[in-house]
């Protein structure tokens, strides 16, 4: 594939992620922070997010599996996940966390379990998409091209 084509694919792909609400403007901020001194910034941060989130999701699963659920603890995990997902722009994950917290507050175990599922789903989805995105970027770079900046109409 020609570089130009890959670039176009990348642009369209990224745009679609925004359109679908998987990513929001915060992700753009991250991209704008990336520069020559830190060319892999976005990838690094997102990788960090992935590691951290997976730990949190594990903790959440364990916590909700307890005979007596500690909702405060659960809430605190969800809060963290909400914070980090919003920081990288994973909008849908963040929204799922918001709903999750509501159920925590009312200590609705069923609601919490459902939300956990939701969050996981959104998380794996965005993870998948981002990995694809990074792969496209990588292709461009190895082909000698540069990654186009997304201009979104936000």
């Amino acid at each position, binding site marked *: 594939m020609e570089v130009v084509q890959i670039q176009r694919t990348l642009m369209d792909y990224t745009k679609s992620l925004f359109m679908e609400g998987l990513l929001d403007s*915060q992700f753009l*901020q*991250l991209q*704008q*922070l990336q520069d020559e001194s*830190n060319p892999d*910034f976005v990838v*690094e*941060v997102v990788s*960090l*997010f992935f*590691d*951290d989130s997976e*730990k949190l999701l594990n903790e959440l699963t364990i916590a909700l599996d307890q005979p007596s659920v500690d909702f405060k603890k659960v809430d*605190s995990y969800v*809060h*963290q996940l*909400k*914070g*980090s997902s*919003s*920081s*990288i*722009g994973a909008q849908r994950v963040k929204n799922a966390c918001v709903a999750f917290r509501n159920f925590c507050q009312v200590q609705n175990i069923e609601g919490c379990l459902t939300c956990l599922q939701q969050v996981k789903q959104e998380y794996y989805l965005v993870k998948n998409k981002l990995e694809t995105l990074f792969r496209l970027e990588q292709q461009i770079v190895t082909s000698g091209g540069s990654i186009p900046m997304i201009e979104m109409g936000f």
Partner: protein
Amino acid sequence: MNFSSGRGSMPITSSSAAWKPADAATDQFPAGLRVLVVDDDPTCLMILEKMLRTCLYEVTKCNRAETALSVLRENKNGFDIVISDVHMPDMDGFKLLEHIGLEMDLPVIMMSADDGKHVVMKGVTHGACDYLIKPVRIEALKNIWQHVVRKRKNEWKDFEQSGSVEEVDRQPKQSEDADYSSSANEGNWRGSKKRKDDEEETDERDDTSTLKKARVVWSVELHQQFVVAVNQLGIDKAVPKKILELMNVPGLTRENVASHLQKYRLYLRRLSGVSLHQSNLNPFISTQDAAFGPLSSLNGLDLQALAATGQLPSQGLARQQAAGLGRPTAKSSIPMTLVDQRNIFSFENPKLRFGEGQQQHTNNKQQINLLHGIPTNMDPKQLASLQQTAQSIGNMNMQVASHGAQNNQNNSLVMQMGQPQSRGLILGDSTVSHTPRLLSSVGQPILSNGMASSVASRDGIPEHIGALGCNPISQASSMPNFPMNHTSDLPGNSFPLESTPGVSSFASKGAYQEDVSLEIIGSGGFVPSYDIFDDLNQHKPQNWELQNVGMTFEAPQHSSSLQGNPDLAQSVLVQQGFPSGQKNGHNRSAGVVSKAMFSA
């Protein structure tokens, strides 16, 4: 740099850049602003760091609150602002906020994904200077420097609050600040400052004065101009109208000058009486503001005088310290700020004794030394509290000092006031026994005046000591300046020394030649200052004694005496705008103290 990838695992701190002296960034302010960011979320932490670096700030990140605190403690003047997350596993963000406010008095910005009203309110009540909602955008971070500048400005303002209005454009003073504030001032205000000088003064008068409206702030510069004018005319011939003309300050009225002149006259009279008022060291403690720099010179002298008299009981010191400390926004210890960084450090070094004003910026830890030399009267508790206060004072000093305050000798002088005892404290001679030594040396002249009793009692020494404690009395200045303190009329006007350089300025004041022996400043020991006492003794020591006693020695009467002798307190305090934290209404004294400082 590395940062932990796991949450709640080992605390990690990483610096984005090597530490640079604060001065380095002065011209490029806010670039180089030293930010400490604390967040247990590694993703956020990394993003914030990157954003802050993009804003050209110097960033250090921590993922644990405890780490952040220890980093802050180790680098007392190493940071300008802290950004902290609210929800953290090891410590609540608000608790961290409190600690920072108490110990370091840095502006703290809270942030959280939580935007609930009650959480934001909590931030407000705990003293956070701002609250950011995650996800944080870089635009929000670009302006955080305003909090640093604002805080410094407010500290100055508070300093002056006791009686004078601040001049907004204290450009010269501000430009002395090593770091950003001056840059900010230069950058933002330089042009407009001069132009708006008058306007601002007027505005300030209305807006910033905590006292009556339209009250003129007698800043150091303004006072200096005043003194110059008075000296030109001759103290006998100095009438408000002529002074006003000579000063040629727009917006200043004859009435302003008249009332200031009255106070000044009393001050002069007091000086000649050579009475040492150590009563209100508190003001000193409270005014940490760097702005006090110029004033501090005056204050320093007074402090020294006070210290010299050794009248300040250790308790007082402790109290003062206590009063002065522990205010998140408070000026933790006026003396601190005023005191030259060198002086501050003298605390830390028990061996330093008085004259050593070494600049050991970073030794907050040594603050404990402050308590050394505490008069034996001090009981363990007081000692402990003193230590604490001293520590915090020390910390605060650091803070203040780092603000590029005019850490000049003058500052140290202020500290000096702390009387010998306080000196002991400051120096931290670890043994209380030192105090007696000090006392004897210091108190000797005094004792001869019959002060002995009061000295011995030391009970009454009010917070002053605390204030003094902060300053390595090493600067010891001639206490004689204290006589000024007697005037209760000095509501906190500060009479800045005409000549800044510490004690020497006193010497130059013709009227107070005798007081000049204050030259002690900067000397290694405060012993020389004792000479002054001889002089002092000759000058109505009784007055001083009485006053001091009232103020400082009688613990039980302490507060009442203080109240009753506002001037004492005032004179001692020297520092204007004494923070509200002052106990026993020393606040007023703060203002007075500064006046006292003047040695003419």
